[in-house]
Each structure stands twice: as structure tokens, then as C-alpha cells.
């Protein structure tokens, strides 16, 4: 399988967010500039659910804890969907080295 493009990762992420956000009844539009905490009402604990769903989908792990901890130095409220897409895309491993 070819490496997913950023656009594919965005579409995957939107699907995951829609599924997760169903429980707190979010039904608005999700764009690259949508903010995770502000617009989507994610709470910090949901980061773990998000990470788990993404890892399940791509069959690999991502250093989310380290990523989120660095964000705190910037403002975590500003985290946009596109930032998460860039992070995931930047850490995708070629299929043969997954594990």
C-alpha cells in the first residue's frame, strides 16, 4: 500500500473525530483550521482515545504523549486539525517497517 497523502490522512482523521465526537453531539463542519479543543470540545483525556483510534487505523504507534507535551509550551487551545494531520503524516512508517 502506498503512503497515504496528507489529504487522505485529513479525511481519515475527520472520520475518526466524527465518530469520537458523536458522544458529545458535535455535528458541525470540520476543516483543517477547526481547533480541536475550542471547536470540537475535545478534552485532554480524549487525546488518548484519538491516539488509540489513529494507531488502530494505521497499525503503528505514534509519539502522541511527547507531541502533546510539547504543545503545552505553545497554546494547546490553538491546536488545529491540520496540525494533527501534519504530525500523523510526518510519523507514518513505510508498511514493511511497521510494528
Amino acid at each position, binding site marked *: 500500500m502506498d503512503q497515504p497523502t496528507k489529504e487522505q490522512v485529513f479525511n481519515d482523521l475527520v472520520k475518526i473525530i466524527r*465518530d*469520537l465526537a458523536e*458522544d*458529545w453531539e458535535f455535528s458541525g463542519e470540520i476543516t483543517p483550521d477547526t481547533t480541536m479543543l475550542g471547536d470540537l470540545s475535545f*478534552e485532554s*483525556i*480524549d487525546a*488518548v*482515545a484519538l*491516539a*488509540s483510534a489513529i*494507531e*488502530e487505523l494505521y*497499525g*503503528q*504507534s*505514534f*509519539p*502522541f*504523549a*511527547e507531541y*502533546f*507535551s510539547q504543545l*503545552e509550551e505553545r497554546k494547546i487551545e490553538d491546536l488545529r486539525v491540520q496540525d494533527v494531520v501534519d504530525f500523523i503524516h510526518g510519523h507514518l512508517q513505510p508498511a514493511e517497517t*511497521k*510494528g
Partner: protein
Amino acid sequence: MNRQCLLLGLDGASFDYLEPLIREGVMPFLGRFFASAARAPLQSVVPPLTPPAWTSLVTGRSPGRHGIFDFAAPEGPGSLFQRMISSRDLSGETLWSIANRHGRRATALNFPAMHPPPAVDGCVIPGWVPGRWIRRAVRPAELFDRLKKEADVQVEALGYWPDQESKAIEGCRREEYEPWIRLHIEREREWFRALRYLMTADPTDLTAIVFDGADKLLHLCWTSIDPRSAPEPSEAPFVHLRGLCLQYFRELDSFLEALVGLAGPETTVVMASDHGFGPTDTLLSLNTWLAENGFLVWASDGPHNGEAERVHYATHEIIRGLDRARTQAVALMPSANGIWLLKDGERWREGFDSDEYRSLRVRLVEGLLDARRPDTGERVVRRVWTREEIFAGPFFERAPDLTVELVDSGHVSVARNSRAVTVRAQVMGCHRPLGVFAIGGPGVRGGAQLGVRSILDVAPTILHAMGLPIPAAVEGHVVEEAFERDWRQAHPVVHERAGAAPDAENGSGEEMDAQSREQIARRLKALGYMG
């Protein structure tokens, strides 16, 4: 006929506080069950911690061989950052997957490391899942709606809420005790109602649940549950809190009675705990000790507490608070009492046989063994384990380099406190290595009191009672003395040959092919870990 089993997991149960509760009439059913069962004190894993212990109990394997060491795990090889464990970390077969492999269905409620839920033929509601995600965490997916509609179960209430959980180890204000105890009483009711519904509407061959409220209550309210530790038993607030805690145990007793009744006399019933409980009055702040002894250096803007001693920090607070280049050792979690060693600011990943690594460990072990209480001068550390001593197996590199066992078997603090060892303002409860095991049902030697058994023996004993063979990967042994002689002769223990079972059930990429097993064996040998 398929022989069936009901496993009732009692988190934190030990005979030394249950027996007084039975004598006082708080748990009459448990008293009758223990009297009619074969029972034994159950030796937990090291450290006696909930996630690795329950995982060992349902796999029959030690942590180095199932991969669960703590509530969290490093998020990558060589990383200090910790993420919550998931079912992807658990390698190899569980009781549920073994039962499924033999065509038996299974129900597993509230076990750790079960999220996302594995592909079990039966029902899974994982434990330790935040309430906000539990709808997506159950298996089969429609179970959430069924439990709500058909059984009126408050499924979200089965989840946990991190701010609440931390009170068990951090303590809380006096007025918070009552709502906190009630939270656990109510959550246990929902677990009971969920299982009662499943046992009626969709019974399976193996049915298992963990009631974990006792673990939380015992941490915070030890003095209320065990009056021997209470400072002033006559004090009114103490009497009130004790009443609430006893209500928890009274209700638990009625749940156990109802579930055993539903299972029927032909079902083997096993009650077991992940570890026991006892009092603790000291607090070892491991990072403070490491800093005082030159193994850890805080950055100039590192964390600092006020007057009150704390137990817990978010892992990233600790990591970001370190002067990493000058730090050789750090504790990250207040649960498994682990110490992670650093070299040039990163985790040690090789050179475990070097003099540098070994002498660092020796200095840490010797220093920690000499840590003392400020009031009596007594030692606080019983033993410091190296990971090859307690975590041998394919996953040992995910475990901390050293594990500190305290004299009272309690948990350390990872906070930057003012002093390394302090006497707690209030006695709290902490885990102890000896839990409980009791088995009742067909062929069981009722009333037999056996010597200490290992937590690894529970899974093979359950499999045997169900008429299933024991997989080769299981390290524990069937507790054969729990059964009558005639029954044993008619039902000999059957072992599966190696290779009959899949190595890993989760496809997590942790499966070991023969070659990588051999590589690891060679490496362990080179390091002196294997004979």
C-alpha cells in the same frame, strides 16, 4: 456437557481484612462460600499492581511474557514519555481467547488492558476506560444500546474519570470522602446489573468480572475498613465513613451471592484477587531521593510543590522538569515504583552488560536500601529488583530498569517533595503481595485450606475445571489439591503441545517468529540474563 466457570475478581481482596468483615456479619455469603470452597492465599506478581496482576491472572503468564507492567507504558522504544496501556500491549492468549479457540464463548467485564476490546466471541466491557469513550469500547458494538435499553444500565457510569481516581493515592478533603465512596458503591451496582443481565440474556461458558471498587476504597479509607489502624474509632466522622465503606462490602456480598446463584451448582466458581491490602504510614518520594543523592537534576524551572506532599505528577511534567543531560535516573509513575536509567539524556537502550550500567544500578540499589524513616531511622526499602530478575521474557525492555519494593509494599511518590522520606499525616491503604484464591463447584474439596499459590496458577486451574487443555505458554500450574481425589482421577490435567496455540492474539506486531525469539535468547544470554 461443557463445564462452565464463573470468575469473580475481587480487586485488592485479602483474607486479613475480609475475615473480620465476615465475622462481623458484613459479608455472610462470602463466609459461606469460603467455608465450602478450597482456598489459598494468592501470591501476586512483583510489583503487586492491578494491571500486570490481573493480566497475569487471566493469562497464566508473568509480566515479561505478557507485556503489561503498569497503567502506562513508554510510547516507543527508548522513549521516556508514557501513554496509557491498551490491549495492543497485551501479547499472547487470555482465558477468553483460549476458551474461544476451543469453541467456548466468554464474557469479560472490567479487566485492564482490554481496550480496544479484543475479538472475543462473547462480550467484553473493558475496565479503566474513561466514561466518555465507553460506548465505542464495548464488544459487540450493539451491547452499549442493549444494556441501556433492555437492562437500564448506566453504561457511562462504568467508566472512570481521572480526576476522581487520583484521590485514591493523592488523598482528598474530608468532605470529598462521602461522595467518592458513593461513586464506587454506585459504579459497582452498575457492573453487577450489567453482568446479571448478560448471564441471563446471553450466558457464556466462561464468565468473568472484576469488582474494583474495594481497591479504591482501601487506598483512601483503610482506617475506616480496618479499625485496628484507626486513630480514634469513636470519632463520629470515622463511624460515618466506616458505615459507608461497610455498605460497599455488604452490597458486594449480595452481588456475589446473586451471581453465584445465577451460575448454578454445576458451574465452577472462582473468586480471586490481583493483590492484597495493608496499611502504610510512610511516603518515599523517589525523585526527591534521586535528586538528593545526585542521580537526578531538576532544571531551573522544574516542578516544585508547596507545603503539602504530593504523590503524582503528569509524566511530561517530570520529563520537562529534568536537566536531562545531568540526570542518570528518574521515576515516572507512582504505581509500579519503577526507576528508568538515562545516559546522555536518553534511556539506556544497549550496553546493559557494561560496567557503567551495572555500577550505576549497584549504587542506586545500595543507596535506596539505606533510605530511612525520619522518626525511627528504620529502612523503608525492602528490596530493589533489576528487570531481569522480575521481568524476564520478550517484553522486558518495556519495563523500568529497577523496581523499588517498599517495606510496607506501598507505592512511591514521583513528585518533587521537600523531603525524600516522610511520615504520612494519615495512615492509608497500599497493595500487599498476598491476595485470595477460592474455588467452589463440582469436584472441589470443600473446606480445604491450601498453602500459598501463585497468581499464575489461576488461569490453568480455571481451564482445567472447564475441561480444557493447558497451553504450553502458560507458566502457572493447575491447583490440583483443590479437587477431590476421585475427580482428579477421572479428570487428568491435559497439556497442549507447544505450537498448538497462536503466539499472539492481537496482531500487534509483537508476535515472535522463531528467528527473533532466538535473537532475544542470544542477547539475554550475552547479558547474563539466561543460563
